[in-house]
Each structure stands twice: as C-alpha cells, then as structure tokens.
C-alpha cells in the first residue's frame, strides 16, 4: 500500500509538469467520431487547459497505424503521455468514465 501511495504522489507531480499527449483514432468522419472529438475537447479544456495536445488519426487514411497502438475498436483514445499508456474506447460521451480512465487528477473532477 505504501508504494502505491508513493507512486500516485509521483504521478501527481508528473501530471503537473508534463504536457499531455493524446491520440484519438477514428475511422472516417462518422457522427460517432465527430462526437468523440467534441467530447474529448470539452473534457480536456475543463481539466487540462493548455497542457494537452490531441492528435487525430484517421485509420481510413493511415490503416497501417492501427496495429501499432493495438486498435480494434473505434473511436479509441490513447493517452501516450504521461505514462502509463491508457486506452479509452467509445464516443467519450460518459465524461466521468473518461476522467477516471485518463487518470485525471481527482481533485479537479467536477461534481
């Protein structure tokens, strides 16, 4: 238990410094992918204002990129930085789960 505490403490410090690198995989401009991107932007602006970068990968244009991040479902959001790598699938409509999934700071979670 001790170690976990330490780790999360470290994570906190890191998240404070590091610019978040997020990648959203979509397959074409479907309503679902558009919704996912909109949902993502909203959450990031709320919790990571100025500390994030979102890269959108359209697999229809770059199919060979799917294997690298083990993409099966779309849309998939991958948190590349800070580590560890995290993956969230779906249109990100459930923002609470996105926040938990991305491990955004609990203190900043709005109630």
């Amino acid at each position, binding site marked *: 238990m001790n170690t976990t505490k330490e780790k999360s403490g470290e994570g906190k410090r890191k998240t404070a410094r590091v610019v978040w690198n997020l990648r959203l*995989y979509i*397959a074409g401009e479907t309503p*679902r992918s558009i919704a*996912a991107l909109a949902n993502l932007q909203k959450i990031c602006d709320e919790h990571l204002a100025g500390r994030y970068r979102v890269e959108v990968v359209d*697999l*229809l244009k770059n*199919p*060979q990129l*799917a*294997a690298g991040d*083990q*993409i*099966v*479902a*779309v*849309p*998939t959001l991958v948190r590349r930085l800070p580590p560890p*790598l*995290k*993956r*969230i*699938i*779906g*249109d*990100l*409509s*459930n*923002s609470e*789960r*996105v926040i*938990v*999934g991305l491990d955004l700071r609990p203190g900043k979670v709005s109630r």
Partner: protein
Amino acid sequence: MSIHQRKATPKNGISKCPTGIPGLDQITEGGLPKGKPTLVCGSAGCGKTLLAMEFLVRGATEFKEPGVFMAFEETDKELAQNVASMGFDLPALCARKNLFMDYVRVERSETEETGEYDLEGLFIRLENAINAVGAKRVVLDTIESLFAGFANTSILRSELRRLFGWLKAKGVTAVITAESGDGKLTRQGIEEYVADCVILLDHRVEDQSSTRRLRVVKYRGTMHGTNEYPFLIGETGLSVLPLSSLKLDHKAPTQRVSSGVPRLDTMLGGKGFYRGTSILVSGVAGAGKSSLAAHFVRAACQRGERALYMASEQSPDEVIRNMRSIGLDLEPWVKRGLLRFYAARPGAFGLEKHLVTIHDLIIEFNPKVVVIDPITNFASMGTHSEVKSMATRLIDVFKSRQITAMFTSLTSQDSAPELSEVGVSSQMDAWLLLRNLESNGERNRGLYVLKSRGMAHSNQIREFLLTNHGVQLRDVYVGPSGLLTGSARVAQEAMEQAGVLQRKQQAQRKSVALKQKRQQLEAQIARMRSEFAFEEQGLMLGAHEMELQEKQIVVDRVEMGHARKADLVSAHGNGRA
C-alpha cells in the same frame, strides 16, 4: 449460388479450397468452402490453432495462396516458435510476403469503455493485412477472445456478424477458431454466424491413452464424411485419418509373390500369394507365425524387394537372433537396406500415432512387403471398433500402394481358431491357420489354408516343421485314429518304407526265379540240340557209306566187264539197267 457457378463445379456444387492437410481434404471431398468462413471449434489444446496455421502455411507453400493470420491469443513470435517444430518457417514466409501475421491484443483492464463504439479498427487492420500480401486465406484465432476484451457483448455480436459478412464479400476463405464449452460448439455461439462449415476437434482420454478426433459437423452444399476421424499432430503437421481413400477402388494385380516356403506356394495354386493382398496368419502362441513371417520377408529380400517388419513383441535384435535358430539369417538384408524393422510397444502411444508412423514409414521406405507381427497386440489399445477401423485403414494403405502385407494374429488356446481377435479376417484375402495338433503325448504344428481369394488352393492340412533349415511342410497321415503327426507320422513313414522294401525284395526274388528257369530251359535246349546233331551226323555218315558202296559196285561191274571183254557201252547200259 447461381446456375453459372454450379456449372463450373458440377460435381460438388460449391467450389472448395484445399487445405493440404492429409486426410482432411478427403473427408471434406476437396477442402473448405472457397470464399467462405469455416468455424473450427474445440476445447483447449485440441489443435485448433495448428489446424488453422497449417491451412495457411500449406496454402502459401502448396497452393500459392497467401494468407493472413490474425492472432488474438499468441504473439507472432510465440506462434512461430510453436510451429517451428513442424517445419513451418513463419518468419521466412512473412519475409516472402506469403504470410502476414497480426497480433491483436485486447486487454480489458487497460481499456475503459465510454459510450458507443464499433470494431472498425479490426476491419481496417484485416483489410490492410489482406492487401499487404494479396491474401486468399484468412485465419482469426481465436476471435472469441474479443468477448473477454469488451464489456458490451451486443455491440460485439453485431460486429462479428458484420465481420463474417465482410469476409464473405471479400471472397477470402477464412478459418475462425473458437473454444467449445458448456455443451455448446462455441462458448459465445459463434456458430450462429458461421454457418457454412463447422469442424469440431476433440481431445479425449480413454483407457489412459489420448486420442484426438475431428468431425465435420456441418458442411453446407456438399457431401462430407460424417464420422469422427482420429487425427494427430505429427512431425510434419496435422494428419487426419483416413490417410487413404474412403472408396474401395484398389487395383487387383495378378502378379504372384512367393510366401518363402515352397510347399506353401504349392498349396496356393503353385505360385504363392497375389501381390498387393493382405494375408492373415493366425494361430496360438508358439505356432510358428513369426517364423512364417520371417520366411515371407526373406523371400521378398531375395527378390530384391524392400520389406518392412513391424514387431511389437520382440526387438529387431531378438527377431534376428530367434530366426537364426531356424536357419534364417535376416541380418545381411538389414545391412543391405532391403529389410527394415520398426519395433514399438503398442502402448507406447495411441493407435493413430502408430498408424501415422507406419504410414510415414511406408511413404519414406516404400516397401513392397510388410509384416505386422502381431496385429492382435493392438487389440488392447482401444475398443473393438477402434482397432478394427485401424486395421481397415492399414489394409487400405497397403492395398492402395500394392503392398503385400502379412498380419499375424494370436488366437487364444480355447477360443475357436477361426476367430481372429481383431475381427479383420473378413478383410483379408488369404488366411493361413496354424494349429497345434496334440496326440500321443506330443504337440505338433499343423498348417492349412483357410481361405485364399481368387485362386485354387489346397484343402489339406500340412504338418508344419521348424527345422534348422527353416520352415518345412510335410504331409499329414490320416490313419484310423485320426491325423498322424510328429513321431506317429515318422512311425507311419517308417512302416511305409518297410513295405516298400518288402515289395522290392519280392520283386527281386521273382526275377531271380525267372532267370533260373530260363537258364534251365536253355540248358535243356542245348542238350537236345547236341543230341540231334549227333544223330544227324550218324545218319549222314551211313548215307555216304551207301553211296560209296554203290560207286564201288559200279566200279566192280566195269572191272568185271573188262575182264569178260564185254561191250563197254552195252555193259554200261546194262549196268545202269
């Protein structure tokens, strides 16, 4: 299916994609449905992945059809290692663009689901892979892993349905593996989506020996074998039995091969067995079955043919040593490479493994003659029907390659000798029965031909002797007290010989008497002849004297006339008168 397509393959109705796996293409009459998905299901460790992999590897190497292997459970590296022992070089195939491997990892713990999604990513990866090598074959192993990776099964199900439809539209022949369980073919009911062909693999343990089995549960639009067929994973991949055809269409050569025992050949119409037939030699323990088999093998080697001797009770060394005791030296033939032994305990591995080993050996060694000594040892290996089906397959293998095969069969002392334990006698073309004949406190061996299809054969029992010069057959005497064998036969032989001698002596005596009589007669004739000659001489002498006297009288008369001065002529004329 359109009429046009049906015309293209009139025999089977649908076109097929050969797997290249020995046996499987025969059961499915040509392979898996071309351009359609096939479901291969079975419990863990039954060989699904291997079957799928072999389908791709053989497709790439034998049929020039590149393939895509999408693995959900094992990484490329692990897969490559696992199949390397079977001679499948996956990295090389990948490098030559004959194969594309993609490992799909779905980890629920790393993934959060937030709202609606689909599996387009999988489709894109698959399409990318198919395009990369121009794949005609696709394997998804094991797609059910996705159910562990995603919580929303309703999305998953609809996506899988879409995937199979998509695969069909792509026209690739796909193999989808799935784990069976809970009494169902697949845990997640994938069989609902893949309806064209379903193959079930099974791995069971019976009597402590394990058997893998394969069954084609369903195959739309075509005939297929419906039985459970044993299969095994060998050194070169999967083999499904039957190894040979399901049909009875062997050629029937009329060439004959010697049994190695001249008198036995005589009993078989004078020429021995037909080539390519199966011969059963049954008998109780110690009846001389192996010795007969050794003769058969040696005769083949002497003809310059290769022979395979499968011993399941004796090691090759033991066979060689034991056969030397009856004057048969097999070792030179082994050294010359004409004779090969294959010795394995029946219990060493399952029936199928034996069958495949034998089959592989036959392919490699290509013998003309095979001996299985004894086949009954395999009877303990499985149920009656299993053993029988194995024997059938063996016979099938031999016949299709025109190998003359001799099976020895041990019958127990108290059961009827005509009962062969393996129940294969009806499939045999010739059957020699070795019997123990007990009489006068001794045991002797008897041999007769119980049946021999397609040739006139002797109906006689012969005494079967194991001598220093090999097997010899002797006539059996039928006396008033039954069959005479062994010492009784020898006594009978002695008696007959004595009779012959007696008759000979009698004849000799008679001819001597005749000679004597002739001599007597001839002597008599000679004597009579000499008497006659004597008499004749006497008579002739008398006649001469008389003539002389006559002449003297004339002379005297003339002289008298002279003296009387008589007329000569008249005197002469007077004299004559």
